[in-house]
């Protein structure tokens, strides 16, 4: 099973290491060609402005949209959530607010429960994190902090404002791999 990790910039190696530890092949994606024959996709944390400019420079927007809309299981963290929103790739029917919790001195970690995720609360690391400002009807909100959605699911896409890849908790990455293995009754975002 091959999972592409967008590797224009950000903590793509942390994702790749976790995926490898779970037995998947992680492939760094920097060009449209590297998106071929992927079973799943990760959009990592990083700087969303830099990542957006990179997507433009590499002409990745179209191919990424096509891949995700065709039902490829996708996990997005922090900047990845922003990249998927209405203002950017337009995959998720949400608007996000960047740096919503404030500058770095206000970054934090906390325990949160994710709806439908067994195993108890998970440690969520928020770094200059966004939140979801407004979500359309097809978007399921899985968790909130300060009354703002920080984890959402829309069909084959799970997007969170925090960084599971910086913790030992592999449940979100397992969700991604399980979604790939599940019978293809998936609906595209």
């Amino acid at each position, binding site marked *: 099973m091959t999972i592409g990790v967008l590797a*224009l910039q950000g*903590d793509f190696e942390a994702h790749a290491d976790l995926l490898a530890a779970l037995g998947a092949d992680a492939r760094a994606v920097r060009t449209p060609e590297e998106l071929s024959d992927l079973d799943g996709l990760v959009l990592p944390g990083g*700087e969303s402005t*830099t990542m957006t400019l990179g997507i433009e420079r590499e002409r990745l927007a179209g191919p990424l949209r096509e891949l995700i809309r065709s039902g490829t299981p996708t996990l997005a963290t922090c900047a990845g959530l922003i990249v998927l929103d209405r203002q950017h790739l337009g995959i998720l029917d949400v608007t996000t607010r960047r740096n919503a919790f*404030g500058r770095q*001195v206000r970054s934090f*970690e906390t*325990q949160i429960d994710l709806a439908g995720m067994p195993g108890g609360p998970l440690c969520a690391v928020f770094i200059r994190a966004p939140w979801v400002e407004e979500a359309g009807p097809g978007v399921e909100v899985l968790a*909130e902090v300060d009354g703002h959605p920080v984890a959402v699911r829309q069909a084959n896409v799970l997007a969170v404002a925090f960084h599971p890849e*910086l913790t030992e908790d592999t449940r979100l990455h397992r969700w991604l791999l399980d979604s790939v293995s599940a019978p293809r009754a998936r609906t595209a975002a």
Partner: protein
Amino acid sequence: MAEVKDTATFRVKAGLAEMLKGGVIMDVVTAEQARIAEAAGAVAVMALERVPADIRAAGGVARMADPTKIEEIQGAVTIPVMAKARIGHFAEAQVLEALEVDYVDESEVLTPADESNHIDKWAFNVPFVCGATNLGEALRRIAEGAAMIRTKGEAGTGNVVEAVRHMRAIQGEVRRLGSLDPAELPSAAKALQAPLDLVRMVVEKRGLPVVNFSAGGIATPADAALMMQLGAEGVFVGSGIFKSEDPERTANAIVEATTHFDDPARVAGASRDLGAAMAGIEIAALGDDGLIQTRGW
């Protein structure tokens, strides 16, 4: 909701550096330069009074930037804004923390304020990046609380030779530690003048326990690609951008080369028709007194 939020944990501090990986952090002295850097794809900017090349030329005591300047730059961009405090000058660092900069660089580029002690970085909520010329120095800074390291190079020269020397020194020492018997690590820690637990962590991780960027002399896309191939996880470009003939194109090109550092065709493409890079200085011409990298203990 009443979540318990733990701020300023080491994971949160080091985590921001993780988010900057594979990126370029650019020195800027005005809001306008900050906007150019952001539009070119910088992952962060370093807000300064003067770029290192000008600090070098001006001489005198180099200090923390004016808070008004830092706020102007914070107001101009949404990417992280870093700022420099003098080595050991914890009051400057307190000011920068009060301004809510995203990272403090305890930097040898400014004139040191304490010739024995660095800032106790554990006492701060804001994370710190520090320079290092070798593994022992890097681990001493981490022991003091630094959440990110950058090799020092020789700032303001546009000459990559010292950046290479320092990155090779760190990577070489990491490889050497990996070849040792566990019983030999205490002695190795003593030789490195670094805490044993951090030395063990280096062996386990086969690298520094925090993100390590390259700095000090990077002036071209090929310089950035060189440092990335030598093991840098990203680059700081100081004078190299706004002292070049075409800062906007140079900035874009260095960003592209940092992403595609292992693809020579892409680095070639990024290097094309940039105009003149910054002039640059031969290190020997600086003399021992002209070296900035020797500041820090």
